């Protein structure tokens, strides 16, 4: 068991050990959907939702099913994530078709989002209990959203500035991400 306080788990997942900027999880959407602030925000919110569900499912699986078979963890977690994303997709399509259209391809792509799978693995490795897991998931989701929105705002602004042709594209995005990551290192002393 882990005896960290809920607040420190939440804060650590959100800023100090930000999933994207410190642990490099969920980089694909970070690079792919961070061109517009609005899309980035929606992607972040969808992430919080799926992360929380995954945390719940992983906790149940760990406590009641996988106690005697830890070697099946990787396989069963990935199946849980894949089916969860599928279910969420169907439910959203049924009850909120507008949101479904707005999210588009990013919803199914969440299956191979390492942030979701990574959350399940980290939560297990650190031995979080039920409540700690949920708080961890929400913190991580908010952290992802924060990183996505910050990145998107910087990219929107940088489109108007005069950048040498050679630097446009991925290279620049990575270096901006590096500077953001540097800024987030400033939080390291907080906990």
């Amino acid at each position, binding site marked *: 068991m882990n005896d960290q306080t809920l607040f420190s788990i939440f804060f650590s997942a959100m800023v100090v050990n930000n999933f994207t*900027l*410190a*642990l*490099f*999880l*969920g*980089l*694909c959407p970070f*690079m792919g959907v961070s061109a517009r602030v609005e899309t980035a925000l929606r992607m972040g919110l969808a992430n919080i939702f799926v992360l929380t569900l995954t945390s719940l499912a992983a906790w149940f699986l760990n406590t009641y099913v996988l106690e005697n078979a830890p*070697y*099946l*963890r*990787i*396989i069963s977690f*990935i*199946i849980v994530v*894949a089916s969860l994303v599928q279910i969420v997709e169907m439910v959203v399509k049924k009850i909120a078709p507008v949101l479904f259209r707005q999210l588009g391809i990013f919803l199914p792509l969440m*299956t*191979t*989002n*390492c942030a979701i*799978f*990574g959350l399940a*693995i*980290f939560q297990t*490795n650190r031995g979080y209990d039920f409540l700690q897991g949920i708080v961890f998931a929400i913190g991580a989701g908010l952290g992802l959203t924060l990183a996505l929105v910050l990145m998107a705002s910087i990219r929107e602004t940088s489109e108007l500035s005069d950048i040498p042709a*050679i*630097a446009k*594209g*991925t*290279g*620049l*995005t*990575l*270096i901006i*991400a*590096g*500077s953001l*990551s*540097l800024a987030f*290192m400033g939080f390291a002393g907080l906990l």
Partner: protein
Amino acid sequence: MRTTTPSQDFVRGIWKENPVLIQMLGLCPALAVTNTLKNALAMSAATFFVLTCSSVLISSVKSLIPKEVRISSYILVIATFVTLADMLLQAYAPVQHKELGAFIALIVVNCMILGRQEAFSSRNTVYRSLLDAIGVGIGFTIALVMMGGFREILGIGTLFDIPLFGPNFEPWVVMVLPAGGFLMLGFIILGLGVFEQRKKSREAAAA
């Protein structure tokens, strides 16, 4: 699909379509565990193993997998090999296993591996898929070794734990921290861009 020769299948992944540097796939491991050369090598070896085994297995049973459930089937095959790699590393290289930690399990969601299965192994023979997997695996290794080598030299001043510079060397600590990963990959990609542009303008001048 039959327009390429087997040797092209092999060479393509190494540089021209390098998974990390050109296609930007598999970025998470490329950034997260390349703070030293040793970690980069362990990660490349594990990924190489998983990629090659799953490519061979999937290309040999491709006619048995129904189209509707192919992605889930691929993920299951990959997850099985990742579990194997995890256990092998734990048994034979416990130090590296501890350093890499959760990132071994995260090979499952490396989009590069799933991408190769979907784009290549599901439509080609076992032999060609093997060549393709080895090529892409080598390309991945090259990218990771570049990252790991540069970051270790600049950030710690050593290579394979052997000190390279005199005692007066002040290590560039930020390079082994997360921010350094983003910066280093950004610089490498910018460098490649300059290189490509020069080549293009030379070709244009020659023509």
